[in-house]
């Protein structure tokens, strides 16, 4: 019982967001407050989100950046995960624990020098500049190493005896056996970067380079915040992630539990 009540309470803000996005400006300023909108067919807010701000562009920017970051960290993480899991070479453990140690470095502690680098390279306000710090993920390396470690060495040795080169082993033996881990990493990395604010805020100057989180904030830069518009924009920004999340809930939960265990 308590569990269900709690769950409904936790869900309430989402409900309130969706309900508000269907109201008109006079409706949300009604006192006393009225829970449901007068009519369920007011979808103007969803249109106005795109006419008052270049919101398509924000969605596109976020999608581009988040998918680039996800794919790039998948590539680098699976390479590194294989290297760390199945090879012995001098300095391996130093490198591995060095990378895991990076979890202890808050991004905010390196942000000023990073900004200066990006500035010097002329990448401020560009896609490469926005995506640069997110191209690789420590969590990804950890996840892929764990997944690859359980592949029996016999498979790899057999492939080697058959004359496969190291890249061939990687593509034909390793990657096909860790597909669930790869999917998990893609999803969770996409989610993280879609929701990111701090770094884009620092490197983005022009309105057309804004990401979706900045787009949401741009609806608040008014004397009176039009919450009916803002919540419509919020619904649009949250929905893709929510759908991915609900469709692939089991994997996401697993990954999140694991990302929690990474420390």
């Amino acid at each position, binding site marked *: 019982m*308590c*569990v269900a009540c709690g*769950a*409904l309470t*936790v869900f309430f*803000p*989402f409900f*309130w967001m969706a309900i508000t996005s269907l109201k008109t400006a006079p409706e*949300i300023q*009604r*006192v006393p407050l009225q829970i449901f909108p007068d009519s369920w067919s007011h979808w103007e807010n969803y249109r106005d989100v795109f006419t008052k701000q270049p919101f398509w562009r924000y969605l596109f920017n976020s999608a581009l950046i988040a998918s680039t970051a996800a794919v790039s960290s998948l590539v*680098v993480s699976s*390479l*590194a995960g294989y*290297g*760390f899991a199945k*090879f*012995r*070479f001098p*300095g*391996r453990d130093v490198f591995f624990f060095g*990378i895991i140690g990076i979890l*202890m470095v*808050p991004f*905010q502690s*390196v*942000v*000023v*020098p*990073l*900004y200066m680098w990006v500035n010097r390279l002329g990448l401020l306000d560009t896609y490469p500049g926005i995506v640069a710090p997110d191209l*690789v993920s*420590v969590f990804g390396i950890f996840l892929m190493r764990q997944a690859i470690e359980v592949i029996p060495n016999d498979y790899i040795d057999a492939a080697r005896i058959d004359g496969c080169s*190291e890249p061939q082993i990687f593509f034909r033996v390793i990657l096909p056996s860790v597909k669930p881990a790869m999917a998990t990493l893609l999803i969770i990395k996409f*989610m993280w970067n879609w*929701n*990111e*604010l*701090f770094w884009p*805020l620092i490197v983005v100057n022009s309105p057309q380079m804004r990401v*979706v*989180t900045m787009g*949401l*904030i741009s609806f608040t830069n008014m004397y009176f*915040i039009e*919450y009916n518009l*803002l919540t419509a924009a*919020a619904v649009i920004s*949250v929905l893709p992630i*929510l759908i991915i*999340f*609900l469709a692939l*809930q089991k994997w*996401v*939960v697993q990954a*999140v*539990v694991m990302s*929690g*265990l990474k*420390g």
Partner: protein
Amino acid sequence: MDRQRRAGFLFVLPAVIFFSFVFLVPLAQSVVGSFYRTVPGGSSQFVGLRLYQRVLTDSIFWTSVRNTVHLLLMSVPTTVILALAVALGLNRVMTLRWRNVWAAMYFLPFSASLVAAALIWQWIYDPVYGFLNYLLSMVGIPPQKWLQSLTQVRPSLAMVNVWVRIGFDTMIFLAALQSIPGEYFEAADMDGANAFHRLRYIILPLLNPQILMVCILELIFNFKIFDQVYATTQGGPASASQTVIMLLYDTAFKFFRLGDASVMAVFVFVTLLVVTLVQWRLFRKPVEY
């Protein structure tokens, strides 16, 4: 053998290079930068510990540290205790289907961006048209100012953090609870243990590593609070919600005092490192099944 060594090294090389350039070098530069003052025109000058002296005696800096600590002292225990309670409750829901439904609901806020979460809550907190004051009015409590009040702004932001994080912590606790062997509870039942005994002598000791880990993660998450504040109060009213990372951001990217910002960056890094190490040292107890 030699071929394999080289191959292994080449496989990890891209990651090593990336992290060196994106984390290690900038971290070193942050530390070095905290000893230099940048004079207008671009050249910098070694000033020793003078920037540390300036930042660490600045009252605004300590206000933001105090605000941050106050905020996390409210939200961390609340989140962890509630999440533990929810996980225990979910664990008792017998039908798998319903357990998944409720678990998903607790977990949903985690998938929203912090910006969206904070803005939705700002609307719920709205002093005139907000839902929360509407609820209060039904039980006869006068409207509160929430995010616009000097005293309520930090609890209100803490509440947002609890909402965002409760699902994440619950998932970790639930996974741990489900890995406790059933015989433990059977044995306890035979010895006549009640629910409290089970919690006190079986569940809490066995969950000790997860509780510790969740506390550390929550501490770090709450200490770094930025998005929620930036999207709503911007540190106001009257610096009542100014937090450490907000101040770092303003110092670096609004006022361009990069040296001062580097001092804060080093402060954040050292603080979180020390907190984590101390917690590991003090509370780590081995768990044996």
